[in-house]
């Protein structure tokens, strides 16, 4: 008994010494690793073995664009995108959604974002693509609110037209089948003095959106300017620019109608 007891303690001591040596080696390695000039090791990755688990995602809802896709102004933080996602999920648990909307993004930024490797891969996998873009172009590139510079606005519109064409053709190149739902623009300043001017601009831009989207197959324009026409204060957030939760609720209804998600729950199209 006594001998057996001793044996345990001796083993323990050896274990302790062994762990000391191992940890000291690890420590030494770590110090040389972090401080020493690292040798550029060849890239030993092989991406093929990590790609095997994919292909499961059939029903991906992809959101691209600006703060509207992000949901700015919605006190629940959902925006139209998360609402639509939730409704879709009620019908089909397998539906996933990725929101790539970035606050303040312009069409110029989106053309760049869409070039990213990962975004292109997501585009390929998507079943529906929703886009809100243009609001930041329009209201930043047309001079200040009080003094709308028509010439400047026209230049911006032409740049926007080109960017939109490049965005849609990039999407179609990556994914020829998935329907693209492109939201129209609305006039957040419709209740202010200069409303004729701003409304005319918004109408002109919406015509551009329609004209461009007709060049591509399965691009659906979802108009929303009518929602905000009569009582902008009611559906706008306190920043007088972004929709509030009521505005977003309307937007999501519009989108679902366009997506042909009917009340009973089956998901058509796509």
């Amino acid at each position, binding site marked *: 008994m006594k001998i057996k007891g001793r044996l345990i303690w001796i083993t323990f001591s050896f274990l302790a010494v062994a*762990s000391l040596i191992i940890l000291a*080696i*690890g420590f030494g*390695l*770590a110090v040389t690793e972090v401080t020493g000039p690292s040798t550029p090791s060849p890239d030993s990755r092989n991406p093929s073995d990590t790609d095997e688990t994919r292909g*499961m995602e059939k029903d991906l809802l992809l959101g691209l664009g600006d703060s509207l896709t992000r949901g700015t102004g919605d006190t629940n933080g959902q925006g139209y995108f998360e609402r639509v996602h939730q409704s879709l999920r009620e019908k089909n648990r397998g539906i996933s959604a990725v929101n790539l909307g970035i606050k303040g993004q312009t069409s110029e930024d989106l053309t760049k974002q869409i070039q990213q490797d990962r975004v292109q891969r997501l585009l390929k996998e998507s079943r529906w693509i929703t886009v809100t873009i243009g609001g930041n172009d329009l209201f930043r590139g047309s001079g200040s609110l009080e003094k709308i510079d028509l010439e400047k606005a026209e230049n911006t519109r032409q740049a926007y037209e080109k960017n939109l064409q490049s965005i849609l053709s990039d999407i179609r190149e990556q994914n020829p089948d998935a329907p693209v739902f492109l939201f129209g623009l609305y006039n957040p300043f419709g209740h202010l003095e200069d409303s004729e001017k701003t409304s005319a601009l918004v109408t002109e831009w919406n015509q551009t959106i329609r004209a461009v989207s007709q060049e591509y197959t399965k691009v659906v324009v979802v108009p929303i300017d009518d929602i905000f026409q009569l009582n902008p204060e009611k559906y706008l957030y306190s920043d007088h620019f972004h929709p509030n939760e009521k505005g977003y609720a309307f937007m999501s209804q519009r989108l679902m109608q366009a997506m042909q998600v009917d009340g009973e729950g089956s998901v058509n199209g796509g």
Partner: protein
Amino acid sequence: MHNWVSLIYNELLKMIKKKRVRVILLIVVALIPIFTYAQYRTVQTTIEQLGTSDWRTVLQQQIIDSQNRLSSSRLPDEWRESLKLNIQQQQYYLDHDINPAAPGAPTFAREFVEESVSLFLPLLVVVVASDIVSSEHAGGTIKLLLTRPVRRWRILLSKYLALILLVSFIVTATAVLAILISGVIFGYSGWNMPVLTGFSQQNGELVTDHVHLIPQWKYLLMGYGLAWFACAAVATLSFMVSVLVRSTAASMGVMLAALISGNLLTQLAPTWTALKYLAFTNLRLTDYLSGSSTMIEGMTLPFSLAVLTVWSLAALAVAFTVFTRNDVLA
């Protein structure tokens, strides 16, 4: 030489025959399943929310979310910087098709050491280290020890070396237990998964020049090696306190307070750069390996190691001076 071995062996035996060591191992055994479950829940929730288990999608979503957080004007500048670095790092993972959180016991053990290096492991160490000398006073056995024909500094040194051995054992045991227990849920694969290291920071920019991949087992070895160094420094400081304060409870209290306030201070006052000269703000050594940004500017691995070494050497000097000169009366 033989004399030394038996001295250290004797001290080691005294330490592990106390219940403390077993209690500590029990704490680890009890807590790791909880951490494992917590980690498991986090992964499940993410999958649930996104409706996907593809980590690339998750990572992309995280990047976008961080970018949106960046655009908030209420964000403090330090956070903004570290958020930016995080985004760059995640983008790098994405571009190079590397899953930063591939589930598996080794990944869990890696994240566990990164999280526990600043508080959990040091706490365990403090519990065993702080009574190493004071308990001899409390039990009165110090007189028996000192009446032996062995010089005092030899006795103290053998105690110290035995303590370092015990700390090594605790760190290794934690690693082994973390792997064994979490593997039940996550599986035991992922040893050769490539992990990125070599991130460094210069003026808030993430320098990726030296970034390269190492297999995860090597990363684990290095991570626990760094944790071991941090724990050894904590053990050394506790050792000194244990010599100075003759009550075990008091020395443990002192160390715990110091440890916790070190952790709190870095979070409360990240702009107070003088904090970086304290020992307990330098315990997060594994951050240098993983490339997560440090809270205080100007901290590098050599700097942190130097600070910890200086504090440890000073503590040893104090401990030996006091122990060899003190009168032992009561």
